[in-house]
């Protein structure tokens, strides 16, 4: 039952965010801002700067260790969406055939280099975004977005997405189970039935949306989602933000890999 496992997987990401570690306790706004800065820094590298990207793995690794998030879980999720990145870059080696020397006498086409850099950027950005959710919880990120000035309507959309995706998935799970119980071998599992199931799901969600809206109205909803103030910037947040910014700055403007390499060389020679 693949659908069931997917459902529990999503629930797992949610459960991870209930942990109570140093990373989880940080202010969501600070984490969000640092994550965004991280994403922009990673994207800002040109397409051949593969080596300069590697030190950035330090940030997700740190979050994962301090936040006690299992590496294998994040790795699997990144792998799951990787086809997108692979298809974006797969033709680079063919189209971009300029030669680049990497080691003495060893050359590869520039396309391979840019393909690898796409993959690295992809792994960095997706894992960091996942870690943000896993250490902050989805509503936490939403409230941070709201306080950083995103219009209320978008934030409400996201909050509803989070709240009702579980309900919708449970609904789907029930329908899929009911179908499996009454369909034998390949009968009843064809595309026609699938299309009908999707149709039914759509109708049910429309009806549910109506009932939810009614529930909101009866509790005085007038177009704006009210929120309670809850965050306070603590000294730990400031320290975290400063360290992260300093680290990103160094990695962006100094060849960290080379410096580290020379340092190691120096130690051994």
């Amino acid at each position, binding site marked *: 039952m693949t659908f069931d496992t997917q459902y529990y997987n999503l629930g797992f990401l*949610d459960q991870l965010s209930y942990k109570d570690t140093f990373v989880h306790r940080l202010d969501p706004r600070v984490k969000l801002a640092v994550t965004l800065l991280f994403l922009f820094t990673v994207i800002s590298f040109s397409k051949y700067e593969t080596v300069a990207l590697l030190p950035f793995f330090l940030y997700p690794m740190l979050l994962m260790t301090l936040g006690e998030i299992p590496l294998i879980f994040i790795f699997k999720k990144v792998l799951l969406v990787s086809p997108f990145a692979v298809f974006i870059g797969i033709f680079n080696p063919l189209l971009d055939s300029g030669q680049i020397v990497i080691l003495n006498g060893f050359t590869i086409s520039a396309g391979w280099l840019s393909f690898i850099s796409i993959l690295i950027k992809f792994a960095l950005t997706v894992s960091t975004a996942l870690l943000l959710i896993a250490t902050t919880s*989805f*509503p936490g990120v*939403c409230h941070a977005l709201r306080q950083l000035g995103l219009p209320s309507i978008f934030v409400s959309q996201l*909050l*509803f997405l*989070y*709240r*009702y995706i*579980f*309900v919708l998935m449970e609904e789907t799970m029930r329908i899929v189970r009911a179908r499996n119980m009454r369909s034998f071998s390949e009968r009843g599992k064809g595309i026609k039935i699938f299309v009908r199931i999707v149709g039914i799901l759509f109708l049910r969600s429309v009806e*549910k949306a109506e*009932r*939810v809206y*009614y*529930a*909101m*109205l*009866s*509790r*005085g*909803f*007038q177009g704006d989602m*009210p*929120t*309670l*103030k809850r965050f306070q910037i603590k000294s730990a947040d400031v320290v975290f933000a400063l360290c992260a910014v300093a680290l990103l700055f160094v990695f962006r403007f100094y060849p960290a890999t080379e410096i580290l390499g020379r340092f190691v060389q120096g130690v051994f020679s």
Partner: protein
Amino acid sequence: MSHHIVEFKNVSFRYPDGTLALKDISFRITHGESVGIIGANGAGKSTLLMHMNGYLMPTSGTVNIGDVYLTQKTQQEIRRKVGIVFQNPDDQLFMPTVYEDVAFGPLNLGLDEAAVRERVNFALNLVNGLELKNKPPHHLSCGQKSAVAIASVIAMEPDILAMDEPAANLDPRSRRLLINLLKTFAHSKIIASHDLDLIMDVCRRCIIIREGTVVADGPVSEILADKKLLEENNLELPLSFQRC
């Protein structure tokens, strides 16, 4: 002193698809009364409840809640007076955590933070749900969800409490807790349900509707003991009457 009355006068309602769901229905529920509304599936119970806070507007006739007539203009005012608890708590709990959900109504009423906190804690405490505060609704059991749904309505301090099948999906113990809880409320209560034993425990008066009209209205002890009347409406004697 405020009079928390609910009065329907010759109310009819036709859905856009042509179904006539309420047919010239009239009744009056006075201050502090607890009334059970029963009837077969599709008799119009839910449609009736939806009129009580102006989600549906009568096609003809008038709805009077606490001396305010239901119109487009008075909708907001009436929604403050009548709190509705839905049959499916998933429809009602739409915020990411229990606490935020219960706070949603009071915040919309424009209360300040301290007052909101006070109300939320009070309401959750009332339904024994204080320890669920920071949980997301999708991790609650069905009984917990319906307790929180009731708290979210109580937190708005409505004058009148209307409930649609409050005990559906509850296990016997949660159902018993709910009945005890409902008995402690001093509000005017209107409960639509098929659970006749629950109605018997909680309500004094009972209204039977069939095909959108009132067919019987009287004390619970009389109506729920009338086997013939109940069977005509796809109902049965409450279990507690069947034993003797």
